[in-house]
């Protein structure tokens, strides 16, 4: 009987109108129109991102997590906090996967204060661990946007000018309790070229609109959990660099992974300079400049400050610079041949189809999004290249 001790009884839970989701919409009612708009913007995003723009590949991102009373709300299951943290875990993974030479820090805000959860660092494991631990936090009081931004600025402002400085706020509460006028702070952020983006969990708050508009970030409000995830993943992609950011050459080290025992018989395990689990190990990456040993890449050398990456890391962020061209959208009626998607082989039922401009292959909407969001290359083009 006590299989689900956590879950509240049905009659204790919130009131839901589950049938509304299934509502038919012939009269152009609310749901249909909003979803249509969303679909359009989804496509737009794919299209917009294609253009030769300079991207801020080295990112410094502070994620501010609201831990105020309103995070206990159960409209995301099981509650907002747990759901958010879970999504953030995947976000952190994805973030480092796509931006291997970037860094991330976590800040929580509750009870009118802001606290640093993790420092700005490049290691996903540490952040993931911190996020796991944060599930048990007690949510109380109001958040303070001002304090969190202030805390984030403290570290961001020391970051070099060629990197992008970003803050992502996940805001559940509709109010912020600030010690001073936030407009002043917004000006400071603007002058420091910090880009602030907000994901709202409940509704549109004016101050966030202003904040994001002024600093050039984006502001979105979630509809449900999957939309939340989608919005979070938007922030995985590096944003276009502001034209005024400095250009400079960056020294980078590309250490090889070496295992001492292969070359030297009486090799002893040695300590790593830094890592998640400091301890003795045989193999590792050695900094080409000072020979400090690291178990994982990418990392900034603790001794000489050199950025250590591996070549695949750089290659992985490559596709941002040379993105796949947008496919051409056309109504399905105009298409004469067999109506099958080249990727999933499914029938083309939607009202529009998408054609690759280089190989003229035809795809459905889902595959179009999949190719652009994940594959970053047209499968048919690859196929025709490797065939001969």
């Amino acid at each position, binding site marked *: 009987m006590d299989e689900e001790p956590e879950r509240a009884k049905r009659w204790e839970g*919130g*009131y*839901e*109108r589950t049938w*509304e989701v299934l509502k038919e919409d012939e009269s152009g*009612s*609310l*749901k249909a*129109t*909003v979803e249509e*708009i*969303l679909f*359009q*913007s989804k496509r737009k995003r794919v299209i917009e991102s294609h253009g030769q723009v300079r991207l801020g590949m080295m990112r410094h991102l502070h994620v501010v997590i609201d831990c105020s*009373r*309103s995070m206990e709300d159960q*409209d995301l299951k099981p509650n907002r906090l747990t759901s958010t943290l879970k999504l953030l875990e995947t976000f952190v993974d994805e973030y480092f996967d796509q931006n291997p030479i970037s860094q991330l820090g976590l800040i929580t805000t509750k009870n009118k204060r802001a606290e640093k959860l993790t420092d700005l660092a490049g290691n996903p494991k540490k952040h993931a661990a911190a996020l796991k631990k944060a599930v048990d936090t007690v949510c109380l009081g*109001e958040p303070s*946007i001002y304090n969190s931004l202030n805390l984030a600025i403290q570290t961001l402002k020391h970051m070099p000018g060629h990197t992008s400085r970003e803050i992502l706020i996940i805001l559940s509460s*509709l*109010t*912020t*309790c*600030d010690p001073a*006028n*936030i*407009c002043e702070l917004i000006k400071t952020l603007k002058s420091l070229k910090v880009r602030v983006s907000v994901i*709202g969990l*409940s*509704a*549109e*708050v*004016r*101050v*966030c*609109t202003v904040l994001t508009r002024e600093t050039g970030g984006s502001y*979105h*409000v*979630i*509809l449900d959990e999957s939309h939340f995830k989608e919005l979070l993943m938007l922030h995985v992609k590096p944003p276009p660099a502001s034209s005024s950011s400095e250009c400079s050459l960056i020294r980078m080290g590309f250490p090889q992974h070496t295992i001492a025992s292969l070359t030297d018989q009486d090799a002893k395990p040695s300590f790593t300079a830094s890592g998640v689990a400091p301890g003795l190990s045989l193999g590792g990456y050695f900094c080409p400049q000072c020979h400090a040993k690291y178990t994982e890449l990418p990392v900034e050398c603790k001794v000489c400050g050199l950025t250590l990456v591996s070549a695949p890391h750089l290659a992985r962020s490559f596709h941002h610079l040379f993105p796949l061209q947008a496919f051409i959208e056309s109504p399905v009626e105009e298409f004469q041949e067999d109506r099958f998607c080249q990727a999933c082989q499914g029938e083309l039922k939607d009202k529009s189809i998408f054609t690759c401009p280089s190989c003229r292959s035809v795809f459905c909407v889902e595959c179009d999004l999949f190719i652009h969001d994940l594959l970053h290359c047209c499968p048919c083009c690859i196929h025709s290249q490797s065939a001969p």
Partner: protein
Amino acid sequence: MKLNIEGLLVYFPYDYIYPEQYSYMLELKRTLDAKGHGVLEMPSGTGKTISLLSLIVAYQKAFPLEVTKLIYCSRTVPEIEKVVEELRKLMEFYSKQTGESNNFLALALSSRKNLCIHPEVSALRFGKEVDGKCHSLTASYIRAQRHSTPDVPVCRFYEEFDAVGRQVPLPAGIYNLDDLKDFGRRKGWCPYYLARYSILHANIVVYSYHYLLDPKIADLVSKELAKNSVVVFDEAHNIDNVCIDSMSVNITRRTLDRCHTNVDTLQNTIQKIKETDAAKLKMEYRRLVEGLKEANVARETDVYLANPVLPDEILKEAVPGNIRTAEHFVGFLKRFLEYLKSRLRVQHVVQESAPQFLKDIFDKVCIDRKPLRFCAERLQSLLRTLEIADIADFSAVTLISNFATLVSTYSQGFTIIIEPFEDRTPTIANPVLHFSCMDPSIAIKPVFQRFQSVIITSGTLSPLDIYPRILDFRPVTMASFTMTLARTCLCPLIVGRGNDQVALSSKFETREDFAVIRNYGNLLLEMSAIVPDGIVAFFTSYVYMENIVASWYEQGILENIQRNKLIFIETPDAAETSMALEKYQEACENGRGAILLSVARGKVSEGIDFVHHFGRAVIMFGVPYVYTQSRILKARLEYLRDQFQIRENDFLTFDAMRHAAQCVGRAIRGKTDYGLMIFADKRYARADKRGKLPRWIQEHINDGSLNLTVDEAVQLSKHFLRQMAQPFRQEDQLGLSLLTLEQLESEEMLQKIAKIAHQT
């Protein structure tokens, strides 16, 4: 863009047009073609003003002989300024498109307080002071005196205007109040008199209702406006109350005391003049014998706007003998005053009709009906003769004489109520004589009769058919327009029950009910947690609000609400309220969030717009019925029933619902705006209440949002707010609720547009 409205070329200064604007212009054109009156309801924020202006201006250009003038009446100075700015945009567009320079003269007119440029006079703070001071500098005999004694101060701007200003008409162009002042300063002319003079030949005049409806002011300002003008009353949902107020008189003991001193001054002045300049009084006497014939001639040739205070019959007769000489008249006034004083000494409430009052006054102090009717005119003449500069001081005696004229002129449509004390404070004696007008058509009748087309328009005029009935006119068009929307940006919810299933209502029996108050508190608390930025809550009255807020405080609800948002309260004090408003907006601006508790029919509910984040939700606690125990209201209801066959209940509901609609309409000020409208009373769900809401609100109330509990409302609101927070750009509106010229001209769209207007 250039539109073709049934053959009329209309220049519209924007690239896009809302479908309802097009439909509105169609209806307006038909009204003008028929040379009749119209009642048009269109939601706020859909560009009513520009549609009106562009169509009527186009009409004026196309048929210069049929419509010579547009008289645009609005309520407040900021609204007047807004209209002028729209007009300026339109005219710029005209001259850009046609390449001709503009030959239109349009100007705004406001009180001396807003237009005076005299360094000393304009520094005064109150309108009355400015008027009085101005009069003391510009009255004709003051200026005459100056010829003999040059050290009498006069206003040099007025002198300059009088000397040269009348010969050259004001150059064509668009003048708002500041432009007029600038022009006046440049030329050294008085802008106020310049504007008053110029409205006679201006193509477009923008001013306040009162210049047309209040007989005292209309007589001075709007008397000679051309007959083939189009009159527009914007925001006219309260027009009947304006009419009634302009004709009603309240007399307290203080009025009488001040009147007494007035009469004494009059007597002394007469005495003095008699010694120095008896000839002057004789001349006046002679003039009065001749009667008001001249005025009569003018009116018969249809040059003047009729003045309801000065009925036609008076003009044909000479002033009766017993008030012809100045002393007799003063004696007469004294007797009248004493009589009023004795009437105010009552211990119980008296209600009587005008004929009863006249009979009583005849029995008691032998005052006949006839001299009473001439009272107002006679006093004006005396004041002129006595050369009393500061008319402001004589407001009390003017009021009394107006009362005398009105009471003896109209045997119907008015009632006299004498209350020895206020209902709320039965122990404090504060006798008031209400001479209250019950028939708004009396004041507005001359306007309907004189002008060729009168358009009454507002965002909330439902139900449309009641306005022609209470204002007693026959419109040629009555139409209500809906708002075409790309997304449903308004969400009206009727919350009828608390979470514990207690029926929510502000009706009298349950007003003190603890459970209802608690549930109302609960509603506000829950809403404060899910609605971002600003919430405006309206109560039915100040007393009710005080009670509820006090008991919320005791129950600790207020404290909980304050965790989510700050709370501000509207008070009857204007300064306090504007302070609260300012802070409220600040709190909305910087993310703290705020709640404004205010009162339906108050300042906030009428004049303040809560755009975007300033009002994401409006909660209407209860149905804002007017205080039904008031005797004036009862008398009016009775009158409406007898004269117009409008049942008491119908009128009360109509009045309550138009105020409720006004309140909730504060939240939506345009198509990009969005807001929740929460009606927290079970009674709104009934068809008779719901059916009286404007159509553009009504059509979004589906059966599912009728008798909701607080919880259900919260769920719906949450969903709505999330939907609305999704990015929304102009392109999303295009083709649906915003049209380009090509889209507009498509056959399909024209069919759709035909459905927007809802004729009644």
